[in-house]
Every structure is written in structure tokens, then in C-alpha cells.
């Protein structure tokens, strides 16, 4: 079984600040972590390898400092680590990111399962997984809470989380799987793993090292552009209706009709 886990390095905070001039996150002074959902993907990758053998490698696209997150992934059990880093990758939206990651996966070659978190905690789109699958022309299954088994014919049996309950699925390998946090409890790194990770060579690939069309990379390959990022203004004012309940409710309804939010007549109100 050859597995690739795709991870994203994200800021270690939910209290992000935004640079109003270029609408990007201010990353200075904020520590970086592996996207928490991806940590479950790493753990699941290690467990699959423990059960079925093979290799489990980690791949990321980002600036050179992603090296630290890749080493952490190695300390958690990844065999090899690959970093796609190039100035031309910068400013990528999910489409360009997925295109680039898919190129990296093709270069690694012979991949049976691609695992990633259901979404990143900074962008929250959840698009990269399915888009990687489209680029590779293979199936994808999202929000997986359990990998039941993989049979000899190359079928994988999964449980996909729904709002209420779950659905059991069968997919044909190779497949892209995105996982939810219910899937496992990630282990802590080991000292041996950490020592190994310190010395590990991180395979670093630029745009030239992978087969890509430069026009589809980074900002130029990104049809989605962030026009503006803002914190929604807190609603102000408001009106309090107090006094006896019946009268207040009647007044609320009147007000809603007057402002056009509610249709109909007063007849049924009583």
C-alpha cells in the first residue's frame, strides 16, 4: 500500500489578523502548526501502513518554512517527506494548489491512497481534496470517519460522516480520502521519531522538478481572487419590545410587516 498524506501548514491561532492592504493573513509573530485535520490524516496513514504495510509519505506545498511541519510529520511516522516550493506557486487558490499537489503526487508515483484533512482551519474551503482527485482523474470520498478495510481486489470500505448518522461506501483504489476528526486519536511523536526527523532529508521540488503548465500555477493559475477580507460588523441598535406578551408579539409582527420582512395580514395574528 502506497500512501501519500497531503498537509498544510497553518497559523496556530483562531484569532488571525488580516493585512487590510493586500487582504492576506498576517503571519508574523504567529507560530505555525500542521493543520489539525491533517494530523488525523497523518495518524490514519501510519495506521494503514501498520496494518497493510507499504510506504506512507507526506507532501506539502508552501514556503520553505513548511520544512518544520514536514519534519514533525516524519516524527509521527511518515517515511519520506516532499516539499513543493517555488515563487511561482505563491498566491495559489484551491484550484492551483490542487493542480500543483497532483503534479507532486504523480512524480512520487504509484500512489494507492491520498489522505488529507477535510479542510484547513485557515481557508476552510474543503476543496483541495476533491480537486486533487479530479486532477489525477481518480475518485474521491470526503468526510471519512472510518476506514473499515481494504480487500485484495483493491476495494476500500469506508464510513462517511453525515450530519445525522453515516453512510458506508466502497471505492476503488487509487482514491483521495479526506478525513474528519472522529476517525482516530493522533499519537504523540516519539523521541526516536523526533531524532530521525531532525536528520531526515526533505525532498524539495520546484516548478521545474514537476511536470506542470506554468500558467496554471500560483496567482496566475488562480481564477479565485480574494477581493476583500473583513470582519462582519456587529449588528447595532435593535429594538426591545416589552410589556405584556400579547401586545409585544403583536407589535413585533406589525413592525416586521411594515419593514417588508413578513407578508400576510394581521388577521391570523390572534
Amino acid at each position: 500500500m502506497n500512501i501519500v498524506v497531503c498537509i498544510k501548514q497553518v497559523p496556530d491561532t483562531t484569532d488571525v489578523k488580516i493585512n487590510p492592504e493586500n487582504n492576506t493573513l498576517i503571519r508574523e509573530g504567529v507560530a505555525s502548526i500542521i493543520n489539525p485535520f491533517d494530523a488525523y490524516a497523518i495518524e490514519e496513514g501510519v495506521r494503514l501502513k501498520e496494518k497493510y504495510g507499504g510506504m506512507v509519505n507526506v507532501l506539502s506545498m508552501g514556503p520553505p518554512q513548511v520544512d518544520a511541519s514536514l519534519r514533525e510529520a516524519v516524527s509521527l511516522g511518515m517515511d519520506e517527506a516532499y516539499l513543493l516550493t517555488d515563487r511561482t506557486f505563491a498566491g495559489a487558490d484551491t484550484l492551483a494548489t490542487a493542480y500543483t499537489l497532483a503534479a507532486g503526487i504523480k512524480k512520487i508515483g504509484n500512489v494507492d491512497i491520498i489522505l488529507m484533512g477535510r479542510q484547513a482551519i485557515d481557508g476552510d474551503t474543503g476543496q483541495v481534496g476533491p480537486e486533487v482527485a479530479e486532477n489525477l482523474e481518480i475518485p474521491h470520498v470526503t468526510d471519512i470517519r472510518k476506514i473499515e478495510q481494504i480487500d485484495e481486489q483493491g476495494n476500500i470500505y469506508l464510513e462517511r460522516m453525515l450530519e445525522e448518522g453515516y453512510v458506508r461506501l466502497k471505492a476503488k483504489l487509487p482514491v483521495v480520502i479526506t478525513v474528519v476528526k472522529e476517525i482516530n486519536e493522533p499519537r504523540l511523536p516519539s523521541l526516536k521519531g523526533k531524532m530521525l526527523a531532525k536528520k531526515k532529508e526533505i525532498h524539495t521540488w520546484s516548478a521545474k522538478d514537476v511536470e506542470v503548465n506554468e500558467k496554471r500555477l500560483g496567482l496566475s493559475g488562480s481564477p479565485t481572487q480574494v477581493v476583500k477580507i473583513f470582519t462582519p460588523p456587529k449588528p447595532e441598535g435593535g429594538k426591545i419590545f416589552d410589556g405584556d406578551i400579547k401586545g409585544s408579539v403583536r407589535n413585533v409582527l406589525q413592525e416586521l410587516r411594515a419593514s417588508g420582512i413578513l407578508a400576510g395580514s394581521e388577521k391570523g395574528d390572534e
Partner: protein
Amino acid sequence: MNYFLTEEQQMIKELAAKVADEKIRPIAHECDEKEEFPAEIVKVLGQADLYRVCIPEEYEGLGGGVFEMCLVVEELSRACGGIALAYAASGLGIIPIILFGTEEQKKKYLPRLASGEIIAAFALTEPDAGSDAGAIKTTATPEGDSYIINGTKQWISNGGDASIYTVITLTDPTRGPRGSSAILVEKGTPGFEFGKKEEKMGIRGNATRELIFQNCKVPKTNILAKEGMGFMVAMKTFDQSRPGVASQAIGIAQGALDEAARYSTERHQFGKPISSFQAIRFMLADMATQIEAARALTLQVARSIDAGEKNIAKVSSMTKVFASDVAMKVTTDAVQILGGYGYMREYPVEKMMRDAKITQIYEGTNQIQREVIGMNLIKETLRKKK
């Protein structure tokens, strides 16, 4: 303060802290309330390779020493002094195997202890032999290629949970302490049973049990060092393990200081946080100073033990005496700073005060430690006079 840790030591400390914060602290209160030993923590410590830290590399360890053990014990104890004992008391059982084990004994036990697959324990104390360790009555009678062990050991940390026990016995009762021998006994050996689980004031996340030997037969090859050297094995083991108890005390004290300091900034009285009152700040200042002094002494002694310094009994005892007294004082003051809340079991500091108390008592009471320090001091003084 900067203790000039190597990159590897820093890694060990950080990982131990992570285990403490993420895996131990969340269950500390419950284990204390239920008096339960959390077996799953041994698995976590094993997976993190922490048991490997002070085991030689040739036996699948990481080749650290007393210093590294202290780093781990302090971090774990910060979250729970009781659960940390699953680590520290196993260390006490591992030390005599490292110091005195034959190649065969080391090969048999150390790799499994390194992985955390099994844990160890050390058994000296008996109902009538505490500070007067020479008064032990447990016998190991030589018979052909075996020893037949009879007697009862008391208050053994990890008792029942450990798989391998270093038991101090008398192989020749006529010679008293000079007839003592340290013998390895595996759990499950016929004639070796566990007695009652003790109900304790503190360190309740660790099981303390009696070990009962009734005609328990073990091969003669299970002896550590030689017949008659049982007390030497025990004393040399304690010389190395006492800084570990000191670090347990420091960890408990640090945990209490962290709680008290944080609380002082959140608790308002007379319209201000109580940290703005000098009465509180001075208490916190003394607590922090004492902890740092205890840590500096302990880590420096640990370093000199690892560097192979001889005659370490005096300084080793100093670490235990000083750090455990600091822990008792600091945890008592932490309860005082938290006031009524501090006295409630819902808040963590009263447990820390209960946990701290044992560090003044076990592995040699502080009174015995002072005897060791005093006697060595007088010996040195007399030597100078000559």
C-alpha cells in the same frame, strides 16, 4: 533559567511536557479520586520512547543518565506526582539492573523495559524495617540452583503493575545486613503474590501494594551482584534514584506555583487582582526562588553522578531533602494563596499538597537523608584533620 540542555535533552524535556499536558493532566483528578493506576499512560510513555531515555543504547535505550531521567520526571510530575510514579518507580527498579545486572539479565529485561512493554519496581521496605533497613526479615534460602524466598515486602510502588521486581532479601540471616542479597523476581513466579492495595493520602494514581513470598523459588542466576551485597545494591541504587525523587518534588511544586500564580492574577478582592498585593507577591517570589534553587541543585548533582563522580551519597541525599521540603512548603503556600478554593478537591492544589508529602518520606525519610549528609560531612571533616 538556562540549564544548558543539549538539543537532545531539550527534545526529551519538551516531549515529556507534551505528554504531561495532553495525556496526564486531563486524567490526574479522576485517577486521584478513584485511586486508579492508569495503565494506558504506560503505553503512552512507551510509545513516546520516554522509558528508553536512561537505558543504555545497546539495550534499545537512548543512552541518557540520571540527568535525563530528572528532566522527564519533573515534567510528568508537574501534571501529576502520582501518575509520574509509573515512570519514576520503574526507574528505581531499572537502576539496579543497569548497575549490577549480568549481560544476560540486561538482555532479558532492559529492551522490554525500554519499550514500556513492562515496568519495574524495587522492594526493600518491610512492616518492621523502614529507616532501619537492616532489620529486614525476608529470606532467600539457597537450595541447589535456586533461592527459596519467604517474607513480606510492604508499600511497594508499582506493586502488582510491575512485571520485574528487585527484592532485597537475606541469603544468610546470621550475618545481618552483610548476609543480604538483591534478587530479581518476575511477576507470576509461583509463591509470589500481591497483598492488599494501600489506601493512601497522596500519589493515589499509583498502586502501592504488599509483596508476599511463600516458598517462592527463583533460579540463582536471578541474583544481582553477589550474595551478601544486597545492601550495597540498594544504597548504590538510591544514590542514583534520589535526584529522581527530588525532581518529582520539584515538578509537583512547579505545578502548584503555576496554579497559584495564575489564580492570583484572576482572583479579585478589594477591587483588584490579589497578585497586586505584596503579601501574595512575596509568597510567590519565595516559592519560585526555592523551586529554582532545588532544581539547580538537583540537576547539577545529576550531572555529576552521570559524569562518574564517586561518593555521591551526600549530595544525592541533599537533592532529596531540599527539594522535598521545598515541595511541601510550596504546595502548602499554594493552597494558602487559593484560600478556600485551595482547600477544595475541585481545585488541583490540595492534591499537590498531599502528593508532595510522600517525597519527604519515601526512598529514605528526610531524617535518614540528613543522617547520611551529616555522617559524610563529619567523615570528611575528620579526614581533613588528619
